[in-house]
């Protein structure tokens, strides 16, 4: 059921917490362990803004196990303003509304329900930016 795994990933999944390189300022997401030889304090936690643009997208109609109740759903690669690219579903977006370069913002939603004896997995999705 991966209780511990989902718990380990919660900060990245819930609030888009990645890392910033203390020396170069480079931002990366998701957070990753040090490479062999990297100094311990090379990377610090960094919360990304959640703003970005759609690099490309598709619509899943033949889902993998665990997502059978969701199709058709939009999946996309989103280029975040800080530089990294993420893979995520688009939500609050009509199937014919999605477009390459569409500006989007991160929202926290249910990714999967692991069933009556399992966890609800929450994480990031992206939606077209809401008018204020």
């Amino acid at each position, binding site marked *: 059921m991966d209780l511990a795994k989902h718990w380990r990933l919660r900060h990245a999944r819930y609030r888009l917490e990645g890392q910033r390189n203390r020396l170069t300022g480079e931002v990366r997401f998701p957070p990753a362990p040090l490479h062999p030889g990297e100094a311990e304090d090379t990377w610090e936690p960094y919360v990304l803004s959640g703003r970005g643009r759609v690099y490309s997208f598709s619509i899943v109609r033949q889902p993998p196990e665990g997502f059978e109740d969701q199709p058709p759903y939009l999946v996309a690669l989103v280029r975040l303003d800080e530089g990294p690219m993420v893979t995520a579903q688009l939500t609050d977006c009509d199937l014919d509304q999605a477009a390459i370069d569409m500006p989007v913002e991160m929202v926290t939603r249910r990714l999967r329900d692991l069933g009556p004896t399992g966890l609800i*997995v929450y994480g990031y999705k992206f939606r077209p930016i809401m008018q204020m």
Partner: protein
Amino acid sequence: MRHVYIIGTGATAVGEHWERGAASLAIEALTGALGTIPASRLGALYVASALSGTLHAQSQIGALIATAAGIPGVEAVTVEAGGASGGVALRQACMAVASGAVDLAAVVGVEKVTDVLDARREAALALATDADWEAIQGITLTALWALLMRRYMHEYGYIADDFAPFPINAHANGVANPHAMYRFAITADKVRSAPMVAEPLGLLDCSTAADGAAAVVIASEGLARELCASPVRIAGSAVATDTLALHSRPNPLWLAAAAQTTTAALRSAHLTHGDVQVFDVTDPHGITAALALESSGFVERGTAVALAREGALTPKGRLPLATGGGCKARGDTVGANGVYQIVELVAQLRGHAGAAQVDGARVALAQCMGGIGATVATHILTLD
């Protein structure tokens, strides 16, 4: 390092083998590859399977197949690298024989996917993606290729219809291949009107995962000349990886591992891109083959689709591709694809490819990839 030769090939038909398990399929292929050589002469056995462990709750597939072949005791390993398993297994065999550690080795690719329901199969294919950052989002490999296709169309000005020559060519060639799952031609109209699987990929530009096994026996030069009338040399062999997740790449439309392994394999073979006359690459979709050909350096970026439109992919064209039907018509045997590719290309080099024969083929390239090119294995086969 010694030269390495393929001296035997074998394969089962690809399809829904309800009455056969993985071992049965694997032994059929191995038997075909061994011919009159007793299995007990094998110094090593490399079994390639992407999904057997996961789908059948079975580890140690190497020992499983060795036992089924009647040779428990042989050095056998399971090789898993998603869709690149077959090519990666071949590379292990090549290194073992080239180094002198082993004189005779067999590579068996086997995949048995039809025992499980569609959603489970789709999830198993998605194991080749990043579990924590791609698969958890409900992504499928098809959806990732689809979004790459959409980006490619956006950057280079194509429409979805432009990709139809890929599956049309695959199906036309599949007619001539007795192992192929689908042996009928398809038209551009059928491709266009097929239902969407993951926009913009329609059903007829998506391969079907199916059961099958393919095997090759490889030998050192001396043994090859002794045991085989028409050995085919493995002149180049390379494996490389790229970032596991597609989103970690600087340019998602560039398959760096395909580029790297093609360069390395050509260099080992002392050949150039222009020398390659026939290709078999992982091609579940037209976009996959297009990106593979471009990243491997055979055509300029953004032009593979235009060239396909001009007929380059057919056996008479400039880039004969999927002469055995490819993933689309031969069938997508995932981890075994890399070995099916070798079986097909050996037939081409020996002049046994029938209606899909590329005239005078002497140099062939096989390339298989795991996930979106996270692992790529490229081999160059030549006639001496």
